[in-house]
């Protein structure tokens, strides 16, 4: 099963549950809130997903390590390498 089919299956399942909830929520003044909530449920789910995703990405960008030490170390090693290679008879441009 491809990931696409998995997602379509998941979406179908969600649509089914949502349709059932929508149909079985009684119409009437007392349950206007419930009906409204069910009607916009897919939108709330998407919104929640978007907020969570953006938060996760923002956190990961914020905590992305800057490897200053690695860059410094590499610079030193490049100098060492050049010196050693020249000693071994290598001709640098």
């Amino acid at each position: 099963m491809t990931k696409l089919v998995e997602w379509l299956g998941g979406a179908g399942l969600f649509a089914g549950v949502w349709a059932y909830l929508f149909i079985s929520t009684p119409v009437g003044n007392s349950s206007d809130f419930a009906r409204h909530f069910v009607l916009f449920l897919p939108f709330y789910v998407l919104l929640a997903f978007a907020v969570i995703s953006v938060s996760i990405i923002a956190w990961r960008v914020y905590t992305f390590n800057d490897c200053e030490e690695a860059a410094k170390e590499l610079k030193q090693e490049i100098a060492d390498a050049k010196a050693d290679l020249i000693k071994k008879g290598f001709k640098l441009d």
Partner: protein
Amino acid sequence: MGAADDKYSVLLPTYNEKDNLPIIVWLLVKAFTDSGYDFEIIVIDDGSPDGTLDVAKQLQTIYGDKKIVLRPREKKLGLGTAYIHGIKHATGNYVVIMDADLSHHPKFIHQFIEKQKEKDYDLVSGTRYSGNGGVYGWDLKRKVISRGANYVTQVLLRPGASDLTGSFRLYKKKVLEKLVQSCKSKGYVFQMEMVIRARQFGFTIGEVPISFVDRVYGESKLGGNEIYQFAKGLLYLFATT
């Protein structure tokens, strides 16, 4: 096969890397000499006009043709075929693939090897996205794109590896042979497909955090075209695997 018989073939595909090649080779020789593992470096130069091959020949004179193996090709033919070409001539039972532009430091290979031996992993992937891994030389925009793309990939493909577009990895030679033959993509997507197919075949994947130091010499690329290619590849893998 015991540890004493293990040999690591490092595949270095190059195109206009005359400044970086001597440094990366020097660092590789140093890293392997320090760790004591048997190795060879296979330079696959795709007809660089800047004289990368001449530089490689000089290095072969210094380090010997047992350690530096030259397998040049006439012209630029793509990464997948470079690996196939390199594997054909590899005498090791393990293969390390990495970039020759100094963004991947050979000091991590020792950790790859230790990790591989821990659970006899079929492949070990370097990762910029977990543990002590990280990058140098990236601005905020680049970080956001990178993290965003990685997040979308994780959600859509659930690959079971944290760094899909990285190209610093250790493979069992037979595993790499099989994967290269079954991967059709190019560029960034090729590396992604390698990991996704590895999961499909049931190969085990270990991960080692690495620091990625963006190109010291030469230019690094991440433009609209790269992002488009990435999105296309992601959808291709989403729909077919």
